């Protein structure tokens, strides 16, 4: 980027009654001359069920707060937490994909909201095997249909069919995740930009969040991705210094607004010039890296030991390429990590049928 990105605090912890625990991670939608944010309002920092969806209306030009209101929640389990609302308009409704924390599970769900209430729409039953904790699924509208970008690597995209069933469209290894020591994740719902869909990625580096932009092309494949545009190093305040988490994108004229949560306490916005952001993306085309697909279906630790020694040799001989090891049980992760094979990521055995090597 040629010009420094402008960061601006919009709402601070405590600005709204009952937000001593923070008001942050906003979803955002443009509505005429206003911007509607849907913020996570915490009464304190205990992560109790007392977390609220706070609808905050901003003036689109000045981004000054005009009004706010707590949405009444309908249809959620009483003790469930709903948080981190990522908004989008679809089919005339204001929707948001958000996290539901309930009964020991954390997973996204789809809700609708208006000026007064928020209520569930879809449990988002994706045809994927879920972990106990699932976060950072993001949505976008493509060719008139609701799509879900589940993960960036492997790039996993699904479409909601008219009957409400989610269909897997794409699941492609691309090697992007190997560039990070931490997890590479989505950040916010995608918006129309250039000839595709603009989103943000994030990862955690040395205890702080870093974020950059990405673009899916019309074929839903990754076309561009920038380096770090926003760095949590700039965040020294709040409950979690180092956390700067982009949770919504909006295009307003020549501006791209990236709304973010700051330190698990505040809401802010980074303002990008759309032309500059486009230029930055064009300078950074995404080139997938082919990964070695390796199968391991052994049942005994002895098998695992021999396989991992063989894999280490294979990695050295081939110049440490990205490796995807397909295993029957992801719980083997800690045992496999002991062998220190570089650029190795585990996948479920059922996710592939063709392999470059079989170590079983």
């Amino acid at each position, binding site marked *: 980027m040629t010009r420094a990105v402008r960061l601006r605090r919009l709402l601070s*912890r405590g600005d709204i009654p009952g937000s001593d625990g923070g008001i942050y991670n906003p979803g955002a939608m443009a509505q005429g001359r206003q911007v509607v944010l849907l913020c996570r309002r915490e009464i304190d920092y205990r992560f109790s069920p007392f977390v609220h969806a706070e609808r905050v209306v901003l003036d689109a030009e000045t981004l000054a707060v005009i009004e706010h209101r707590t949405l009444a929640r309908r249809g959620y389990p009483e003790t469930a937490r709903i948080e981190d609302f990522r908004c989008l308009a679809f089919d005339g409704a204001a929707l948001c994909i958000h996290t539901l924390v309930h009964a020991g599970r954390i997973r996204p769900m789809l809700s609708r909201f208006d000026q007064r209430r928020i209520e569930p729409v879809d449990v988002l039953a994706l045809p994927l095997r879920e972990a106990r904790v699932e976060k950072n699924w993001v949505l976008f509208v493509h060719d008139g249909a609701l799509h879900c970008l589940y993960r960036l690597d492997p790039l996993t995209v699904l479409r909601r069919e008219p009957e409400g069933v989610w269909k897997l469209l794409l699941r492609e290894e691309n090697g992007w995740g190997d560039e990070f020591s931490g997890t590479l994740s989505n950040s916010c719902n995608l918006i129309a930009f250039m000839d595709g869909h603009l989103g943000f990625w994030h990862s955690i580096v040395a205890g702080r969040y870093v974020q950059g932009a990405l673009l899916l092309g019309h074929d839903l494949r990754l076309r561009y991705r920038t380096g770090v545009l926003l760095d949590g190093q700039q965040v020294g305040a709040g409950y979690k210094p180092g956390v700067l988490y982009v949770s919504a994108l909006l295009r307003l004229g020549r501006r791209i607004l990236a709304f973010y949560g700051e330190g698990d306490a505040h809401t802010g916005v980074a303002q990008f010039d759309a032309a500059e952001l486009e230029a930055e993306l064009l300078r950074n085309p995404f080139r997938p890296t082919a990964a070695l697909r390796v199968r391991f279906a052994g049942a005994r630790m002895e098998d695992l030991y021999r396989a991992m020694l063989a894999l280490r040799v294979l990695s050295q001989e081939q110049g440490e390429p990205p490796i995807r090891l397909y295993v029957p049980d992801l719980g083997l992760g800690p045992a496999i990590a002991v062998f220190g094979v570089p650029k190795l990521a585990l996948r479920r055995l059922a996710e592939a049928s063709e392999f470059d090597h079989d170590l079983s």
Partner: protein
Amino acid sequence: MSCVMATLVYLTCREEPAFEWFADSLTAQLDPGDDVELIVVDGAHSGERGERFARAVAGRAPLRHVAAKPSPYNGVCRLTRRNFFAAASARNTGLVYARAPYVIFVDDACVLAKGWWRAAREAVASGRVVSGAYRKDWGMEVARGVLISSRAHSGLDSRWAQGDDSCPVRVPGGQLFGASIGAPREVLLQVNGFDELCDSIGGEDWQLGVRLEFAGVPIYYERRMLSVESEELHRHGTPFARIDRTLPAAAYRQRLAEFGISRRRVPGACDSSHMLLDVAFGTESAQTQGNYYWLADLTEATLAATTQRFPRTHWFDRRPLAHL
């Protein structure tokens, strides 16, 4: 860096607060090594009053005379038609100005009994949260900070029998009463100070106690910190209004649900003072529910800007403040 040991915040809005009683009774008890600052938070702030207070202290301790910060319910910036009781806002003003690590709030129209400061000094040294004792007398005659005579003790602190003349006694948070309250400033800032949810109603003192208890902070009753208050001065002039409106039971439950609370914890009337209790015990949260600022971030320079975030309606029944 502040080097003072304690800040005493004297809160008044009365035409006649008898500040001289307080100033004389306090300064007479101070030892030469005691390092205290006095802050008078004045709801009737004027230059004339400032000069009077300065004369009363006569250089015996550093003094600042400040106006109570803007409140939606009280003072020149208020949104209501008349002045309402707004002690939480006034007390938080003191916290903004206080420089010492320990703060003691003292109500007006009182004289501090012998031994008050000695017990207070112990609280400062220990960092305990304490609530001092009080008594309300008629016909008080005070000379050089000493109560010479008074008539019938009409209002003895209801906690008196729980107290001890040799040490502070642990009490429930609901017994943190406001005649004099001492606490580390940092502890109060962590819970965002007194809760303006109580303004227009009252109860900001015990509500703070309940919240501090949820934060795991023990509360002590310190009977040796006795302040004797004048009944006549308390009854003189027009007191600030208090409201305790009532909602139909269904509307009350609905309002409570908006706080995320599904059932009442405190049976009784469906009025705002009961809802203060229901919200406090329903959420079990140490934080404020009615403040529209993060107290630790407020400075003298930013107090005026808090008016931009004033609530426009009463939190309990959504009635416009302009109608009150």
